[in-house]
């Protein structure tokens, strides 16, 4: 049996991905923000897939301490139940913030969760991904287009904070991380994809946001497709044989991403900065 880890799995796109992977007969390890939501999601999935193998883990992934704890628990679970192998990792957890807010490490929250959390969790699960010849996916967004990474002020400390600007930048980071990952690890049989889910009717714009973000999202959400739609793309990337090509996927096919993401110098700069901010001496190496 193959195993997938899905973060942000208790609602929205992550939950739909968990459903899709259980339907394919995979073992699904859900990671959610709170234990309460995790158990609710697990209950619903157990009803739908009584034979399915699944477990849930919880943590506030924008805090690096929590990523490390969840990674420890996942690695222990994989060692016990899956010979330490992981076939797919879906870094889907993400958030929008109306105001500049920081994590306990003093990092801007959207950058910390939407980019760094996935970076750090992938690092911690690299041994299992290597054993499983795994694929890593990031939930990016078409909003990554027409923006760039402001390396001189990546966490919006000097610029006026923009909820959408910080979101777009973090989603561009997803594409760049996926590209950098492939340059480094494709030769080892590992593979990363950034997925544009399209406009999906989830609650992302309502969680810990206010005012304009809530209003705009209420209007946008009404136009959104159900989360099952992007979940099909994730499922195809997790399970597709032979290994799907391409970097950036939308609605079941390779799509065009912003050429900014292809600049290898910027990819490497982001990679090195992310290692530094996560306290990683060497990505994929020792903790």
């Amino acid at each position, binding site marked *: 049996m193959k195993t997938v880890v899905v973060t942000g799995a208790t609602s929205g796109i992550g939950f739909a991905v968990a459903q899709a992977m259980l339907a394919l007969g995979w073992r699904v390890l859900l990671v959610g923000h709170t234990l309460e939501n995790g158990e609710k999601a697990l209950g619903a999935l157990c009803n739908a897939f009584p034979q399915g193998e699944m477990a849930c883990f919880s943590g506030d992934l924008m*805090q*690096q*301490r929590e990523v490390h704890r969840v990674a420890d628990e996942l690695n222990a679970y994989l060692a016990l139940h899956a010979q330490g192998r992981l076939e797919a990792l879906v870094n889907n957890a993400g958030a929008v913030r*109306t*105001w*500049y*807010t*920081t*994590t*306990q*490490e*003093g*990092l801007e929250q959207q950058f910390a969760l939407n980019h760094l959390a996935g970076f750090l969790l992938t690092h911690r699960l690299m041994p299992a991904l290597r054993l499983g010849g795994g694929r890593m996916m990031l939930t990016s967004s078409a909003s990554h287009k027409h923006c760039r990474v402001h390396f001189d002020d990546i966490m*919006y*400390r*000097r610029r*006026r*904070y923009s909820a959408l600007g910080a979101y777009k930048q973090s989603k561009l980071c997803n594409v760049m991380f996926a590209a950098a990952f492939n340059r480094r690890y494709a030769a080892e049989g590992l593979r990363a994809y950034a997925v544009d889910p399209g406009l999906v009717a989830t609650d992302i714009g309502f969680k*810990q946001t*206010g*005012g304009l973000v809530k209003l705009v999202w209420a209007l946008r959400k009404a136009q959104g497709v159900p989360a099952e739609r992007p979940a099909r793309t994730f499922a195809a990337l997790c399970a597709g044989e032979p290994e799907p090509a391409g970097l950036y996927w939308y609605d079941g096919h390779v799509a065009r991403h912003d050429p900014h993401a292809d600049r290898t110098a910027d990819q490497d700069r982001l990679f090195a900065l992310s290692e*530094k*901010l*996560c*306290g990683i001496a060497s990505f994929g190496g020792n903790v």
Partner: protein
Amino acid sequence: MKTALITGASGGLGRVFAIEAAQRGYDLVLTDMDAASLETFRQGLKRQFDIRVTAEVCDVTSADDVARLFEVLHGKGIRLNMLYNVAGVDFEGGFLDMDCEQVLDIVRVNIEGTMRVLHAALHQRDAGSRFTVVMVSSLASLYPIPLKATYAASKRFLLDFATSLSQELSGLNVSILTLCPGGLPTTPGALQGINAQGFWGRATTNSLTVVARRTTDRALKGRHLYIPGVVNRLFSLCGALIPRELLARLLFLRWSQARQGRPAGEKLVG
């Protein structure tokens, strides 16, 4: 090398002041109550900035803790150029809804703790250069606020105290700025509060980075009071023009609406 001491450093506002000072090249001394989150933040700063960061667990209301903190600074030969007095606390609920110890905690942390640290810090200041103090008070210090009576009065103490002390110490090259912010989006709880107050909550809320930058700019220029935000400054004028008893009645109406559904005794700041 200049050094800034920050109390309440691992909370939402403490963190942005620490980051602001770090961006200006200050070495940092961080204190807070919780060892784990303090260490997490120290590590986070070390990864982001090339500065010296000393972190010491310290309950500002404990004479022993504060004495030990300054012994450590003395031992390391660290002299202070700046102090951000951020540590503060508030609990949800009116005077009788709170436990008496909670009421007294507000006084102990916000007043006693602040005095204790400030007194010791003035003795540990770098006498060769200017010493700058930021007192974190609140917009609440400008009015009598029913249902936040203890908190508002404790912040009023800081405002009046700092105004007097500024004069007292002006010959010693010490300047004190009192910051009176409205809502700040620091914690999920604070965000909830801002959203619960609807339009006025948002209108009185200021960006943390802007507040941290402007507070520091103004403090270093020797200014004495900073009320962030135009709406808040207008409110502060009302505070000066409307009779205090009428103000108290109006604010009572507003707060009884705003706090509906929040459990008494819930910790709000700190």
